[in-house]
């Protein structure tokens, strides 16, 4: 960590350069991986890597606060929400990758390449003037303080107006996702009433018949009057017609059992 602190806090050029080459390459690999990987979650991971490396670069430039905020807000919150959505929705490689407009991917690739070349051509020839944090930081005794002075001084209005942006975003999220209840929430009592009024079996269904010799879900239970309780057999079995038929004899058997006469012979209940 001391090495990192060295890079972050002093202007030793070699340290900064080493950080740049390492973090810069990693950020680039992350960006490429994000575009090239098939699984959406992997893409999200790659871009998280890019973001963390960018944060390291910011810190190497002396913008400590920005670097931290980049990690906390972008990597920690924004990307995390992305991951949430990706995982819950279950986006994966099975999604269609067919182009809706023919040649779009090629055109986009070429345009991207041209844009990149233009940026490289311009930026590589640039000599920067007095930009950077050193001068600004010195006035108030540090990066954090300098930043505070800018936010609460020169750019106060922009900072305040940003709150309008956040409120708008909050209202927007609420409009698009929140459902105010039209009717009061159903309590346990209302739910129970509803269940009875629906006319369907209100409680749990009777379990299948289980007797000393027959312990199978396809054997229907018997009602007190000896008739079969059809709904005691799972619906899927009923649909397949796989219910064991229980003839009248069973009713007698049950009575014998109930009467305490255990001398039943091995008669099949089918």
């Amino acid at each position, binding site marked *: *960590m*001391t090495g*990192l*602190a*060295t890079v*972050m*806090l*002093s202007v030793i050029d070699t340290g900064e350069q080493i950080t740049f080459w390492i973090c810069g390459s990693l950020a680039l690999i992350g960006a490429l991986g994000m575009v090239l990987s098939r*699984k959406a*979650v*992997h893409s999200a*991971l790659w871009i*998280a890597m890019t973001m*963390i490396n960018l*944060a390291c670069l910011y810190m190497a430039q002396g913008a*400590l*606060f920005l670097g*931290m*905020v980049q*990690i*906390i807000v972008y*990597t*920690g*919150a924004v990307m*995390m929400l992305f*991951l*949430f959505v990706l*995982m*819950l929705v279950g986006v994966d490689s099975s999604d269609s990758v067919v182009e809706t407009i023919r040649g779009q991917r090629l055109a986009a690739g070429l345009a991207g390449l041209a844009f990149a070349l233009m940026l490289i051509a311009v930026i590589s020839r640039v000599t920067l003037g007095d930009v950077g944090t050193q001068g600004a*930081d*010195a006035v108030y*005794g*540090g*990066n*954090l*303080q300098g930043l505070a002075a800018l936010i609460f001084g020169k750019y106060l209005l922009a900072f305040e107006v940003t709150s309008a942006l956040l409120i708008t975003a909050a209202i927007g999220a609420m409009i698009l996702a929140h459902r105010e209840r039209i009717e009061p929430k159903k309590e346990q*009592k209302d739910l129970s009433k509803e269940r009875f009024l629906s006319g369907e079996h209100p409680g749990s269904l009777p379990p299948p018949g289980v007797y000393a010799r027959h312990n199978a879900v396809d054997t229907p239970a018997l009602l*007190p*009057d*000896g008739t079969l309780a059809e709904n005691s057999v799972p619906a899927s079995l009923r649909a397949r017609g796989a219910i064991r038929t229980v003839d009248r004899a069973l009713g007698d058997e049950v*009575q014998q059992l*109930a*009467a*305490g006469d255990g001398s039943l012979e091995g008669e099949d209940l089918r």
Partner: protein
Amino acid sequence: MNTTTDDYFNAFTMDPWWPIVFAKVLGLFILLVLIVLITIWAERRVVGRMQMRIGPNRVGPLGLLQSLMDGVKLAFKEEIFPTAADKFVYILAPILATIPAFLAWAVIPLGPMVWMFGYQTPLQLTDFPVSVLYIVAIASIGIYGIVLAGWSSGSTYALLGGLRSSAQMISYEVAMGLSFVAVFLYAGSASTSQIVAAQEKTWYIILLLPSFLIYVTAMVGETNRAPFDLPEAEGELVGGFHTEYSTLKFAVFFLAEYINLVTVSALATTLFLGGWRAPYPISLWAGANEGWWPLVWFLGKLCGFIFVFIWLRGTLPRLRYDQFMKFGWKFLMPVSLVWILIVGFARAMRNDYNWDLRQTVIVIAVPIIAILIVMYIIESIRERRADAAVAEEEEARTEFDPMAGGFPVPPMPGQSYTPTRRSKATVGVTALPVSTDAEIEEA
């Protein structure tokens, strides 16, 4: 000329790599692993006591080596990869969870300047102007480990556990961050060593008690510990995000979890309990805050927090998920925001108008008390109305005969039970219809 922050923090970069930085890193690592082993053992022993058991007492003196043995056992278990797992991420996840857990300790100040191998150096690996934010940032990377573990296992329980725990950590990170703000406002810095330095006279637990309470609540939520251990709710999710993990990968998750517990405790100590500063009666002794002694005070405070964690686990039942989220967003957050407003107001008044503490307290407390009184009056009126409504309902209750349908039934809401002519005792007994053999024969 004042020392600028750069000058101050450059002192940390003066440490020579060998042996100071090396020693500090190694020392921290050993300290953390030891603390974790002891914490696990202590947790089992203390919870055991609280539940009238003994806890592990066979391996080593007092069972002290139990956690070590458990670790060794885990290392020798069979390695299992679920078929549906995304192998790369599945292996990456525990690493992502553990490394940040260790990294966070780089900025925890364990003591003041000490002599080490002939060098004078602070008892802290490094520090910079935003080191508290660094801890938050590192923790938010740690969450990735948990989410990815949940996702890559290819199992529903694990996915739900991972999502739950990251949602929980993100939510409580907000309240936690807000509780830092008051500390930053008072210390005038976001660096850990500066915050400890600023608590020379008064600890912030006294000045900023609400912040402390919010932080302590949030830190339990942040570490997924009981009573907020919903991601691992056994009854619902089997084991949460690490359901599908076994062997060392599971052990490493376990390690990360306990290090996080220790980290948040250390942060609480640093931010609110004066860090390595000696507690009151001891602090009268001049040598208490010098040399290696502060390490003792620091570890003592740390153990106190760890004990509270264990105590909570032994005492409180788990919350329901929606209640827990509601508590975080609808209670902790607004309370923190109001508290920050108050603190900001107090600081601004002191900076710009030289108000003393008494003045500030009066100006803030009077309107708050007034609001509370008004709310109390409104609430009591409302309550009286509600009481009146209940009384009316009582009067409107109809007579009810529990045996009217032949079977005794309990009264419905709005009906009141009046004992029938039969004696009270028999009502209950006849509630159970007992069929006689004769009846069955008749059927």
